[in-house]
């Protein structure tokens, strides 16, 4: 080839090479260009050393301690909705953008501090104490937990509902249109053909407080009972909801999440504490307890108040003298090598807690492992003389003969003819140390184990002391048999009982959601009984009922927020057939009149249980006792929370013929309210009003003052108020012309009438009640007002309250609530706040309640029984070990709660929940760590990843709660024609409740598996089987 031609070709190739180089070097060239122009190819940060960090909200001079507040930011105290602990938090807000920057704890708040600050300490001093000035910061620092920190993303979440929505298309189709608040109210009040599906009864038509809804069963109450009110829980605002529901609208029917959260625990505790109305409960006094037994609760991540408990636990096990044992099917964060010998984990099979409890009780009763002196105190006289805060009924005699007309009741003086029946002096009878029958209030001591014949007015009968009966139940099986049943070695049970007993009155047993099994009521009672036997109630280092709440919503010192002219007392039988004995129903009387056996009833009538959502919904659709016509749900999500409910109710909820009207008040669309007809956008945390209560374990009295520290972001009413639960009920009541709302709805102590037109009309007056109760709070200083960010609130205070109320109420909000001083927590060796009712070894109410299936009396003490269905048959009678070899259970996540899946910062740490599987079970079923497995129950099937190891009891399958969502951002919705796509990652993981199933012994389609006495949803111990999934796409 010609040289020039060759060169030309080489030149062309070289040019091609240069071109390729140009294309390949483009990136570095771009960076170089940006670098030349901007000095950097990256984005410039605000500071060259600490990047884009926030300016501090205030700074403290390290020498003088002088505080300089940052004028661009403010902090304010309010409540956190990250879980139902409802800690008091301090929220840091950018003044210019009105945006929440960060959240931490309120140092005045007992849930957010080790020893909370006295409320008379000025706010600036409190802020100074949080800094490193004189090294106070470590001592006084007040924090929020991981979820509390991350939760602020809810305010600005893309998934938030900000407008009133009305459904377009069938229920659950995810099609919505925005409507005005006023139009929404009009439609739900008047009803009509709202969805082109036929006529819908409006609330005005339903609200009839006179006409009985069933003439044949007048005890069912008026037609107004056909409105069902649902709520998640009391976040400090329920009083207003209840004012509307019970006392203005006049419906009986209200339910919250309790029946699918921890009701079995609450009722078992209530049975012991003689409180089957409010179900009081206790928590260990962790600061002073010497030995704690945590059964079915994990104080580092659950069992409210978990942030406080987690901190106290960590302190007690490291620098204190606490030793503890965690009994749980799963190894959770409460048991930790960080505490080395101070703690142990004992694994147990789910649903077998009655066996463990009775085994421990048996050992304690047979080996003198109980506080004999304390239990021998028969009455208040003896207790006061002995310096005790209360007594138990261990020595009281129970009429234990079925033929006696008062079988199951305590033997009383009136039975012996020594007093008038029902009078104040008709005390129970005990056998005193001399061996004679004596009044419990007269004897100084009673004998603990008594069994004898007694002559009564109705004949000779056998009586046994409560403690005798407890021992009878405990001795029904050997400890070896209990051990076999629950999967804990007999030697371990005995050693555990011995260790527990050794610490006497400073030993505490704690229990919570782990009791939601088919034997949960008696299990909870049995575990709580350990505390009674040890004598640790009301004792320092024992178990504490807590300080209680400053209640501003009653008939307070300034305003009566309870009574109002025209107030209605709701009447009738609850949809859930709770609190009403079956024997009193017209139905029962008809059976008896016809000579038929009234048992079994058509469905459970639970005299002891509170109104429960687990029955309300399905019963209201089934129509027994009656139908629901309308439903209002505030932040409620039973389809996610109740085991087996979705499968059973989904198609029925979709059909408007079952429930004509469903209005949801919520900031987000969840698995339940996606079937709503209307969604009213609610304020989310930091935007809400309210006054919360306290959990047990907070040993001082308190309430958290919640107020909108930032302007709510959702739509406004025509009057300019934010649309929220409060404005919804107020405006709804006014439209329905209901009493108790609108002008002249609130009576002051001065006799004047005040309006209830806006949320603050109610809450600020409740604040006045709280601030001026007992010893009134001092006025807030100007610095307090400025430093605590309540300046935006002052105008509202001045506009709503009287002049002398403004100062103390400002003080209340400037501290984030009202909190009893730390020094009130203890009174010598006793707790400052005590529970004075007689504690029940035998509960007379329980022992005289008749089971509506069998017609027999319930056992009145803790007892062993396997998880069972309504007809009393055992789980394993229906679902055998061979077919369903594993038992699924759930536990609380230390990060995710049931509605926090949208928080990206939490998902970045834990995006889904692998299920816990024991390695021996894994071997048996051919599962390797990380395999995808199908988990099948009699009611459902899910696919999960297997986390194989030793961290779960063999035979159990653990599922962390908070994942497996279909909504809250995971589902797609169309609003005004615009698609809001779901994020499939929010649907990651599994929900144990998808494995729930129907009670096979109840009428088909009317009930998921519920615990007998309480009606609590059963989720611990669901029978399942697993198999490896090979062909996942």
């Amino acid at each position, binding site marked *: 080839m010609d040289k020039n031609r060759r060169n030309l070709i*080489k030149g062309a190739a*070289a040019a091609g090479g240069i071109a390729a180089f140009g294309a390949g070097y483009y*990136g*570095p060239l771009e*960076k170089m260009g940006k670098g030349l122009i901007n000095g950097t190819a990256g984005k410039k940060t605000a500071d060259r050393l600490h990047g884009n960090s926030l300016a501090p909200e205030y700074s403290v001079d390290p020498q003088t301690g002088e505080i300089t507040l940052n004028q661009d930011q403010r902090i304010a105290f309010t409540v956190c909705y990250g879980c139902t602990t409802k800690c008091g938090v301090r929220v840091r807000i950018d003044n210019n953008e009105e945006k929440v920057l960060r959240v931490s704890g309120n140092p005045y708040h007992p849930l957010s501090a080790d020893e909370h600050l006295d409320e008379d300490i000025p706010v600036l001093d409190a802020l100074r104490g949080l800094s490193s000035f004189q090294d106070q910061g470590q001592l006084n620092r007040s924090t929020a937990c991981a979820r509390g920190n991350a939760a602020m993303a809810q305010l600005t979440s893309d998934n938030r509902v900000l407008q009133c929505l009305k459904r377009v298309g069938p229920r659950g189709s995810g099609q919505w249109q925005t409507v005005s608040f006023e139009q929404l109210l009009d439609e739900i009040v008047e009803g009509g053909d709202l969805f082109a599906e036929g006529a819908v009864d409006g609330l005005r038509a339903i609200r009839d407080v006179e006409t009985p809804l069933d003439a044949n069963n007048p005890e069912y109450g008026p037609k107004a009972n056909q409105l069902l009110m649902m709520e998640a829980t009391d976040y400090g605002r329920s009083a207003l909801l209840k004012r509307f529901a019970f006392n203005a609208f006049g419906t009986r029917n209200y339910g919250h999440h309790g029946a699918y959260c921890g009701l079995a625990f609450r009722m078992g505790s209530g049975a012991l504490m003689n409180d089957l109305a409010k179900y009081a409960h206790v928590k260990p006094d962790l600061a002073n307890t010497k030995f704690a037994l945590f059964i079915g609760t994990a104080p580092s991540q659950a069992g409210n108040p978990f942030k406080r408990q987690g901190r106290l636990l960590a302190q007690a096990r490291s620098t204190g003298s606490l030793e503890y044992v965690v009994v749980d099917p799963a*190894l959770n964060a409460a048991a930790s090598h960080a505490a080395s010998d101070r703690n142990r984990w004992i694994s147990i099979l789910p649903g077998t807690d009655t066996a463990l409890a009775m085994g421990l009780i048996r050992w304690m009763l047979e080996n003198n492992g109980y506080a004999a002196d304390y239990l021998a105190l028969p009455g208040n006289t003896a207790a006061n003389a002995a310096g005790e805060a209360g007594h138990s009924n261990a020595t009281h005699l129970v009429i234990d003969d079925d033929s006696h007309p008062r079988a199951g009741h305590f033997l009383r003086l009136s039975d012996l003819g020594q007093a008038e029946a029902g009078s104040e002096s008709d005390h129970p009878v005990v056998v005193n140390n001399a061996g004679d029958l004596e009044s419990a209030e007269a004897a100084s001591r009673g004998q603990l184990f008594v069994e004898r014949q007694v002559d009564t007015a109705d004949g000779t009968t056998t009586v046994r002391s409560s403690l005798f009966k407890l021992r009878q139940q405990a001795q029904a099986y050997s400890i070896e048999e209990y051990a076999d049943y629950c999967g804990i070695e007999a030697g371990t049970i005995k050693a555990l009982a011995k260790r527990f007993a050794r610490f006497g009155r400073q030993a505490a047993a704690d229990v919570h959601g782990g009791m939601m099994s088919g034997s949960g009521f008696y299990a909870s009672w049995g575990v709580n009984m350990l505390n009674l036997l040890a004598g640790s109630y009301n004792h320092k280092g024992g178990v504490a009922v807590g300080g209680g709440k400053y209640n501003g919503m009653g008939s307070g010192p300034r305003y009566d927020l309870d009574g109002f002219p025209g107030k209605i007392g709701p009447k009738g039988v609850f949809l859930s057939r709770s609190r009403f004995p079956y024997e009193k129903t017209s139905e029962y009387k008809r059976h008896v009149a016809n000579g038929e056996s009234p048992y079994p009833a058509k469905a459970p009538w639970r005299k002891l249980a509170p109104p429960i959502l687990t029955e309300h919904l399905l019963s209201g659709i089934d129509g027994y006792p009656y139908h629901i016509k309308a439903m209002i749900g505030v932040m409620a999500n039973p389809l996610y929370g109740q085991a087996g409910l979705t499968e059973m109710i989904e198609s029925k909820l979709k059909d408007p013929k079952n429930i004509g009207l469903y209005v949801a008040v919520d900031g987000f669309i969840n698995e339940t309210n996606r079937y709503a007809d209307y969604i009213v956008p609610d304020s989310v945390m930091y935007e809400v009003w309210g006054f919360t209560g306290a959990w047990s374990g907070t040993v001082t009295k308190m309430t958290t003052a919640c107020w909108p520290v930032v302007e709510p972001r959702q739509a406004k009413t025509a009057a300019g108020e934010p649309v929220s639960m409060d404005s919804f009920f107020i405006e709804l009541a006014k439209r329905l012309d209901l009493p108790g709302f609108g002008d002249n709805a609130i009576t002051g102590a001065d006799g004047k009438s005040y309006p209830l037109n806006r949320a603050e009309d109610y809450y600020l007056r409740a604040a006045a009640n709280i601030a001026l109760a007992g010893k009134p709070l001092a006025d807030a200083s100007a610095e307090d007002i400025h430093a605590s960010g309540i300046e935006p609130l002052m105008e509202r205070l001045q506009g709503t309250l009287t002049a002398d109320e403004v100062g103390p109420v400002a003080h209340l909000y400037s501290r984030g609530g009202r909190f009893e001083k730390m020094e009130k927590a203890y009174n010598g060796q006793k707790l400052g706040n005590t529970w004075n009712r007689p504690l029940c070894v035998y509960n007379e109410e329980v022992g005289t309640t008749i089971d509506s299936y069998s017609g027999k009396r319930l056992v009145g003490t803790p007892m062993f029984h396997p998880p069972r269905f309504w007809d009393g048959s055992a789980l394993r009678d229906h679902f055998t070990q061979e077919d369903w070899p594993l038992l699924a259970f759930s536990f609380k996540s230390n990060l995710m709660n049931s509605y926090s899946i949208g928080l990206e910062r939490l998902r970045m740490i834990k995006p889904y929940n692998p299920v*816990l599987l024991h390695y021996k079970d894994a071997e048996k079923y051919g599962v390797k760590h990380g395999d995808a497995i199908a988990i099948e129950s009699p009611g459902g099937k899910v696919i999960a990843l297997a986390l194989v190891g030793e961290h779960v009891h063999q035979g159990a399958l653990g599922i962390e709660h908070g994942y497996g969502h279909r909504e809250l951002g995971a589902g797609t919705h169309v609003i005004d024609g615009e698609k809001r796509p779901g994020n499939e990652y929010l649907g990651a993981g599994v929900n144990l409740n998808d494995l729930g199933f129907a009670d096979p012994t109840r009428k088909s389609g009317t009930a998921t598996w519920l615990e007998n006495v309480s009606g609590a949803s059963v989720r611990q111990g669901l029978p399942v089987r697993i198999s490896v999934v090979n062909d996942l796409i």
Partner: protein
Amino acid sequence: MNSMVIEVLTPRYAMAWYPWAVQYFFMIAISYSALMLTVPGLLLGKQRFLPLAKIALLVSVSCTLVGPVALLADLHQPLRFWHFYTNITPWSWMSIGSLLLPLYLMLVVAYAWLAWRPAMQEQAQGEGWMARLSGWIALGQWHAPRWLLVLAGLGALVFSFGIMLYTGAEVAVLQSRPLWHTEWLPVMFVITGLIAAAGLVLLLNRLMTGNDEDVNRQGLTVIFVGMILAAVVAALWLAEGITGYSPSVQQAFASIKNSPQWTAAAVWGLLAGIALALSAAVVLKKQVWLGGAWLVGLLALHVGWTFRWMVLMEVQTVAKNTAGYYQYALEAGSYGFMGIIGTFGLWLAVLLIIDILVPWKKGMQVRAH
């Protein structure tokens, strides 16, 4: 194992070193290795090695010019390279390298300039723009004494030892990556560099100098001996780990032994290495196949480049603070596939431009097959 334990120490890290680094290491290794290949012919004057030396010189210069361009791109902000010279950090190999590299580059260019000058001067005698250009490049007609060439060559050689040392050491010094942390790594870089350089020489021999027999034989010998040495080094490294002599090497094994990808890569490396050594030996033995030496050269280039890719890029996917591996997907753009293609494109352009302008083959007696 507690499911409550959640790892929070392993956020997603971007790759710290880009494919640009691989290109630099590849280019610079060929550069110093090819430089060594010029020594017998150009410095020691052995006639037998002159053709080899001439090709190797072209290879060396072209790679020396392109390497630093790739290196610059590996800096996350390339223009920041001047910081090296205002912040000299003598305990850092990279800092030392920043001083060595420009000097090395200048010496290699000087060496080549001196070697090609006579031919350029001759070309300058002719007519046309090429002649005039040659005259400028040659910078006059004065005769450069031989000792100047030797000095330049020796100087470049000395600095090349520095380059060999610093490029290997700056990678091997990281204790946090056990797969890098071995004294054998710099040695292996040099050996595979020689193999790759010989391979490139064989390829250019086929394409540009008529497949000279001697060059083929010499190149294949370098490859064969290099592979034996590489096998010895690899065996020594493995022995250090297996016997427990070096806990760091044991760590290295542990970090990849459960990965099927790494096992596959190791098997591939073993097979390729065996194939290369065998093919070099066989072609050397069988005269008739000597004309196909360039194919062995391609395989040698593959081995040399892939070794660097595995060491510099794939090792970065082994997680440092946890168990497991990151996923690295080669991107299409500058910092991925196009970057690689671009570097080779630039090299091709430099090669061809020199080839057009410089009569580097002058005086070469080709003994073709």
